């Protein structure tokens, strides 16, 4: 998806079109034979756009975003990130095209997909790009022929950004979060567990979205951690959008051939929120009531470990100690809860009522368990 030009951000339609052409040009297959052959089928969208707009030579485009409290300057549009008016702030993070070596010279950890070496992380995704994430402040990408812009964007904002946040000493959980009563409420679970859908349902009830899918936790005072808004849209399955009665736009498809769409939340939180509770999502058995129960400390430790955004990255970056310390602190300052719930949309209101009831008990410190009455 290519972001629309936004006069409020000082980008005219003409400027944006020229920048977009250049961007698309860099996404085209870099081959010596004519790029219009049959083997370029996967780039039809980019080609169509290229034929409409002339490639102009001009300064490299820059798009600015505010992600997890960081000013990000990117040469490419980051699909799903919401453009921010941070033009006059110095960037914390640079995302740019460049040469990325196939290997690191003296890698400490190396697998087929990645290598690490003192503040450097090399990620190889065949058919997409090689990425070099450097010292928590730069992501360089070296595109493979035929990579689609949306796919590039997914890796930049997903795995690469998670690596970058970990290089900066953050914890990154596979979670979606909303702001409830001045605190961050996190929903963890494997892909398809319903994290984004639950966050979306809470947004429809008026809560502000903090994060989707990639949830950063930054140490605050004492044992507490805060979640910084990631400034991006929700990623939702077509079916969820239909049931939420939110209309999907074809140009907001997450990537080709997948029924998942980006959707801008009605309300986004702009400020960091201290972690209030971390919920591990579980589907209730047929006939079982929705319930919330606090996990025993050791179970909470294991769930936090399992719900790292990419558990293998924690080991690759030697962050196990940091995750242990943070997991202990999070259980002292917030708490890890098992949220068992029926998945039917029809019963969603009951589930949201239960969550609100739980948040009330959290602030009063009365109870750590709750369930819907039979």
């Amino acid at each position: 998806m290519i972001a629309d030009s936004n006069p409020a951000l000082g980008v005219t339609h003409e400027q944006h079109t020229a920048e977009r052409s250049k961007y698309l040009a860099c996404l085209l297959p870099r081959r010596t034979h004519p790029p219009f052959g049959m083997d370029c089928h996967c780039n039809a969208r980019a080609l169509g756009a290229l034929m409409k707009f002339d490639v102009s030579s001009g300064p490299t485009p820059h798009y600015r975003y505010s992600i997890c409290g960081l000013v990000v300057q990117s040469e490419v549009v980051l699909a799903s990130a919401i453009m921010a008016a941070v033009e006059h702030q110095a960037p914390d993070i640079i995302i740019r095209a460049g040469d990325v070596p196939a290997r690191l010279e003296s890698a400490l950890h190396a697998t087929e997909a990645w290598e690490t070496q003192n503040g450097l992380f090399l990620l190889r995704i065949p058919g997409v790009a090689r990425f070099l994430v450097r010292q928590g402040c730069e992501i360089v990408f070296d595109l493979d022929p035929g990579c689609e812009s949306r796919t590039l964007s997914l890796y930049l904002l997903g795995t690469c950004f998670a690596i970058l946040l970990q290089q900066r000493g953050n914890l990154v959980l596979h979670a979606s979060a909303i702001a409830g009563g001045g605190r961050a409420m996190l929903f963890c679970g494997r892909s398809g567990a319903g994290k984004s859908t639950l966050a979306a349902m809470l947004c429809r009830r008026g809560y502000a979205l903090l994060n989707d899918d990639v949830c950063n936790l930054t140490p605050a005072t004492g044992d507490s951690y805060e979640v910084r808004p990631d400034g991006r849209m929700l990623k939702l399955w077509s079916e969820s959008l239909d049931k939420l009665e939110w209309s999907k736009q074809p140009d907001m498809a997450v990537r080709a051939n997948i029924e998942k769409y980006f959707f801008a939340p009605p309300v986004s939180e702009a400020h960091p929120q201290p972690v209030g509770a971390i919920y591990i999502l579980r589907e209730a058995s047929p006939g079982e009531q929705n319930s919330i129960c606090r996990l025993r400390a050791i179970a909470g430790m294991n769930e936090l470990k399992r719900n790292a955004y990419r558990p293998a990255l924690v080991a690759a970056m030697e962050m196990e100690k940091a995750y242990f310390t943070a997991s202990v602190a999070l259980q002292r300052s917030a708490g890890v809860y098992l949220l068992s719930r029926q998945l039917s949309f029809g019963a969603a209101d009951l589930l949201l009522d239960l969550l609100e009831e739980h948040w009330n008990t959290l602030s009063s410190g009365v109870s750590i368990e709750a369930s819907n009455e039979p």
Partner: protein
Amino acid sequence: MNHESTISRSDGWLAAPIGEELMMMSADSSAYLSLAGSGGRIWELLEKPRTLAGLCEALAAEYTVQPSEIRDEVLVFLEGLHLQHAIQLHPSALA
């Protein structure tokens, strides 16, 4: 393990309390362990290497029991820790 065996913590373990429990992580980061109640207290007492007899005496004093009453339980617990490679045993020269 006999009465005069010296027990010491293995290097590299992390430990931190959550409420009444002590959370631990192995040196190779492969496993989390939870010690409850007197188990956590034994780990704390092992901050300095101690003999089995010395450990039982210190613990018995805190719980106001006789060392002989807790010796078997302490042994079972220590064997568990040893299986997890969390402690090292140094047999006494006299054993």
